[in-house]
Every structure is written in structure tokens, then in C-alpha cells.
């Protein structure tokens, strides 16, 4: 569970980091979108509304002209246009750009001019006297001229302001993209490091355990696995070390027992060998140079020497290395069992079926 917890922590932190980065990026980009929306609904919308206002004024002037020429008797279209004009001015007034110092005076004049314009236009509707109607038409036209001029000024000012805002926004967006790129690169690097650490947490101990298993296969019972992860791999390493120690202890006991057996054999065989050697010397004296007797005596001595050497080797056994004796039966390989550790290579072990004894002519 410790390993799982560690992995969950690392993985969870990584996911949290990615989420936070994503949310932060979205939030920042939303900020840019909000600014764009603000630009669209205020600066550019004001420009559009100002243009519409100018168009409405033109349409009002057309209606006034139609009235003057007598081509139009009805005022409803004119009323609608005046109301539309007032609505457009109110729409413009709701934007913050009209409160900017450079636009406040201009917009104030526009508002006054629209009021004057509306007054003269509506007075035109009630003026029954032709001279009085002409007076109001002239005043309305003069107000319209001033309106157009101020609307143009406002449009230019708002347009310039909008362009400046847009340039600023573009610059900020550029820096934002750069910043986000750096952040995402950093996040990618952190992710790679975290993933590498996660794999390291698993692969390193696995490698060590596999290596230890291989050494165990080579009967290197003194090989130990050292881990300091404080998790399940530590437990596995301790289990392995315990097993290796047990195997090593078993091997050591076997060698000790073999050594004791060798000592016992050495003691008993040496006594017997000495007696046999003494008798052989007596037999040689009595044989009086008989070649056949000499040959037999020589073979007996060689066999005795071989026995002595075998027992000697048995005393020098360092490990248990087996070889095949007959099918299904193994015996101790004395040569290899007595070799020093660095010369012992299980890979070179020969799976022999021989019994290791020579038959002589004396037999």
C-alpha cells in the first residue's frame, strides 16, 4: 500500500498541476476574451452607434425636406426617427468612453444638440405659421450640422481610443502566449521528471532484485539486496536477503559436515594406508624383485595415493558442487568444490555421467 500511496501522490500531484495550469490558462485567456468583448461592446459599438446616429440625422433631414416641399404631411416617420435618435444617444451615453476626459465635452454638446434638434423638430410639428415653421426648420438644420461635426469628432476619438486599447490588448496577449508557453514547457518538464521518478521507484528495485536472483542462481549466497525505499520493495528485498542468508547458512553447515567427514576419513584412511604401505614394503622385500609383484605393489600405492589425495581434497571443499554419477544420481565434484571462489564458474560445469575411477590390470 505504501508504494500505491506514493504512486497516487505523485500521479495525483501531476494531475493537479496539469489541472491548475489548464484552469489558469483558460482563466487568463477568458480575460483576454473579456477584454475583446469589452472592446467590441464599447469602443466599436459606440463607433457603430455614432454612425447610425449620423444616418438617422440624415433621414430626419430628408423627412424635414419632404415636409418643407409639401411632399409629406405625416409626422409619424419623423417622430420615429427622433425617438430612434434619442435612443441611440442614450445608448452611446451608457458607454464609459463618453466619460473619458477627451470625449466628455463633445458628448455633452451632442446631447444638448440632440435635445435642441428634437425641440425644433417637434415644434415644427405644431407650427401652423409658415414663417414659424421655416424658423424651426432652419434651427433644426443648424443643430444637425453641429451634431454631425461633434459625432464625427466623437467617432474619431472613440476610434483612436479603441485602436489604442486593441494595441494594448494585442501586446498583452502576445506576452500571455509567451508566458503560457514557458509555463507549459515547465509543466512538461516537471511531468517528465515525475514520470521518470515514478518509473525509477519501480524499475530500480526490480533490477536489483532480478540481479540478486541471478546471483542466487549462481549460488552466490552471500549476495544481498540493499534498498531504502520504505515500501513493498523493501519487504521483498528483506525476504530475499533472509532467503539468501538461510541458503548460505545451509551451505555452510553442509561444508562443515563435509569437513568433519573428511577429517574422520582422513584419520581412518591414513591409519589404514600406513598399514597397507608397511605391508607393501614387507611384500616387496619378500618378492625379491618379482616384476609382477612390483607392478601390483605400484598400483596399490597409486590407489592409496589417490585415496589420500581424495581425502585431502575433501578437507579443502569450499562449496558443494555436484556432478552426474550415473543417470539420476549425482556425486560431489571434488575438483570444482575445492576451487577458490573466483575460479568457480557454474557455467563451465560438465554434466558428466562418469564414476571417476580407473580400472587397473591388477583387477
Amino acid at each position, binding site marked *: 500500500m505504501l508504494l500505491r500511496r506514493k504512486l497516487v501522490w505523485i500521479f495525483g500531484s501531476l494531475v493537479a498541476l496539469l489541472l491548475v495550469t489548464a484552469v489558469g490558462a483558460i482563466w487568463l485567456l477568458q480575460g483576454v476574451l473579456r477584454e475583446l468583448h469589452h472592446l467590441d461592446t464599447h469602443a466599436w459599438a459606440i463607433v457603430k452607434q455614432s454612425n447610425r446616429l449620423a444616418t438617422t440625422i440624415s433621414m430626419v433631414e430628408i423627412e424635414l425636406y419632404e*415636409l418643407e416641399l409639401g411632399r409629406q404631411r405625416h*409626422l409619424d416617420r419623423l417622430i420615429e426617427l*427622433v425617438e*430612434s435618435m434619442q435612443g441611440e444617444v442614450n*445608448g452611446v451615453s451608457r458607454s464609459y468612453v463618453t466619460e473619458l476626459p477627451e470625449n466628455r465635452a463633445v458628448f455633452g454638446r451632442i446631447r444638448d444638440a440632440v435635445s435642441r434638434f*428634437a425641440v425644433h423638430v417637434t*415644434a415644427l410639428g405644431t407650427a*401652423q*405659421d409658415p414663417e414659424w415653421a421655416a424658423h424651426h426648420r432652419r434651427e433644426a438644420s443648424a443643430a444637425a450640422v453641429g451634431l454631425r461635426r461633434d459625432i464625427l469628432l466623437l467617432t474619431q476619438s472613440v476610434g483612436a481610443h479603441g485602436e489604442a486599447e486593441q494595441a494594448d490588448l494585442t501586446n498583452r496577449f502576445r506576452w500571455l502566449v509567451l508566458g503560457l508557453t514557458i509555463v507549459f514547457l515547465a509543466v512538461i518538464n516537471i511531468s517528465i521528471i515525475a514520470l521518470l521518478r515514478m518509473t525509477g521507484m519501480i524499475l530500480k528495485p526490480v533490477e536489483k532484485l532480478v540481479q540478486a536472483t541471478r546471483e542466487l542462481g549462481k549460488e552466490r549466497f552471500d549476495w544481498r539486496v540493499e534498498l531504502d525505499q520504505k515500501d513493498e520493495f523493501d519487504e521483498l528485498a528483506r525476504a530475499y536477503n533472509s532467503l539468501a542468508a538461510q541458503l548460505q547458512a545451509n551451505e555452510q553447515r553442509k561444508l562443515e559436515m563435509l569437513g568433519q567427514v573428511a577429517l574422520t576419513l582422513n584419520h581412518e584412511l591414513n591409519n589404514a594406508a600406513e598399514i597397507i604401505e608397511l605391508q607393501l614394503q614387507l611384500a616387496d622385500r619378500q618378492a625379491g624383485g618379482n616384476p609382477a609383484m612390483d607392478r601390483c605393489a605400484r598400483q596399490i600405492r597409486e590407489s592409496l595415493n589417490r585415496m589420500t589425495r581424495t581425502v585431502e581434497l575433501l578437507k579443502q571443499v569450499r562449496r558443494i558442487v555436484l556432478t552426474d554419477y550415473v543417470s539420476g544420481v549425482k556425486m560431489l565434484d571434488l575438483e570444482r568444490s575445492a576451487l577458490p571462489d573466483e575460479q568457480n564458474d557454474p557455467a563451465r560445469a560438465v554434466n558428466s555421467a562418469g564414476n571417476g575411477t580407473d580400472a587397473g590390470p591388477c583387477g
Partner: protein
Amino acid sequence: MRCILLLLLGVVLGAGLYALWQWTVRGQPSSGVLPTTMPATPDNAIRIGLIPEHDVLELRRSYKVLTDYLGRKLGRPVVPVTLSTYEAVLADLREQQIEGAFMGSLVGLLAIDRFGAQCLVKPELLDGVSTYRGLIFVRQDSPIRDLDDLRGRSIALLRATYAGTLFPLAELVKRDLINGQRAVRIVWMGTHDEVMEAVASGRAEVGAVKDLRYQAYVATHADHRFRILASAKPVPNNALVMRGDVADTLGRQIAEILLNMHTDPEGRTALAAISARRFIPCARAEYDPIYEITETIGPAWSLVGTSGPVPRRPGAR
């Protein structure tokens, strides 16, 4: 467990994307501009003319409520048509561009006289008044005491109205103050309020307006004090005059609705919009004070500001 987590993740992702989409869609600005083109008048619409007296925007707004009510009751659209001059309303009646109009007494009389129009109903205002009078007035501090003192003075008048033209001209004719050395100097104004302003400011020494506008002006200009020299006989205020060919059919339907609308909550709302309590019948005989003037005004009729002959009482032709 894994499937549940994946499903949950899918739901959260879907919800997030939907929220993001809604945010981007909601952020689109609206145009928020009034239309600058008028919708076309339906072919079966009833057109009722309006002649603005002081605020053409306010007049149309308030009578739109009334015409909408009429339209709902009649089952046909009723459209207000705002006319620029009294001549315009007479021309529209002649050319059958409108079925009727709410009009002043002089123009109403001309419509009755020339086109056989009929006056049907008139509004009774909140104070119970359904008529108006003409007033001739001066500033409180004026040395003019009565109409005989008008010789050589300046007088502010309105064109083509009973109170602002016909009545004062008739008084001037009686006193031979139109022509010659005793003639007054006429200053033509556009609205009743402008006449009041002209007298208050001294641009004119005398003024002639309708009493209803006089009272409204005095109520809002407490610092201006005036003195009334003469007042005319009452005549119908803003009556509904229908074209002769539709007066007995469509006119009767409309009159019935208007006469009963004060019993209907919706009707009362429409009446409140035009500052009226109810509609009451209007008879042609109520215009007789105008005939009394037109029969005596003589050549001064040309100063009234309307074209065509002097209207004569029926039976006097």
C-alpha cells in the same frame, strides 16, 4: 469502479465544455438600437389623424395607447397618423387618407363644412371639462385694461385655431384694429406655450391662447403673472371627427367603444394615457360659437391661415 470514474470524468468534461460554450455565446453584444424603419400599415387598418398641440412626441405616445385599445376592441388595427398642419388633416380627409381625426374646433368645423364630416365624441378631462375657451390676456403689470386699449399694441397669435386666431381676430375686427392707424401688430407664434412666453418676455404685449393651455402654463410658471382681458364661448375640445362616408358605420362602432371605455379597466388605462375621464357625445351644434364669429369676421378670414371659403352655418348658404 473504473467505469464509474470514467463516466464521472466524462460528465464533468461535458459540463465544463457546455458552460464554456454558453459563456462565449452569452458574451455576444446586442445591437440595442431602435428600428429606423416604420412597419408598413396593414391594408385593413383604420387611420386616425392627430394634430399636435404642444408636444408631438408625447401626443403620439399617449394616443397610441388609445388606438391600440380601439384596435383590440374592433378586431382591426387602428393606426395613429400624426399630421403636421391643419391643412394637412383637411387634405387627408379629402383624399381619404384617414378615416377620422381628433382635431381642434376650427379645423373640425371646416371638415364638417367642406367634407360632410361628423363629430361623434369628445374627451372629458379629469376635471370634468370637455370644452375650451379662447382667452385674450396681458401681463399682470401691463397698462392695458381692456380690449379697447389694444390700439397700436402687439399681439401674439396662433394660426388656424379658434382660440389663437379666430376669436382674437373677431374682437379686433369689432374694434377696427386690423387695418389702419389703429391696427395692432400681429406676431405669429407656433404653439400656445410660445404665445405665453412671448407675452411673458415682452415680445408681445397681448396674447391669445386656449384656456386649457393657459392654465397648464400658469401652473408651471408661478413667476409669470397674467391678467385676462376677454374670454370666448366654449367649444368642443379635441373631438373625434369622422369622414362623412364612414361616420354612420365605422364611426358609430368607434363612438360606441369610446363612450363605454370608462367601464373597462383596460379602457380606463387608455383614458388615463390621454388624461381623460371618459368620452361623451359631441353634437354639431356645439360648434355654433365658431359660426357666430365666421359670419362676422369678414376679410380678416384671410389672416386665419386656412385656405378655402369661410364656413357657413348649414341653412345659411
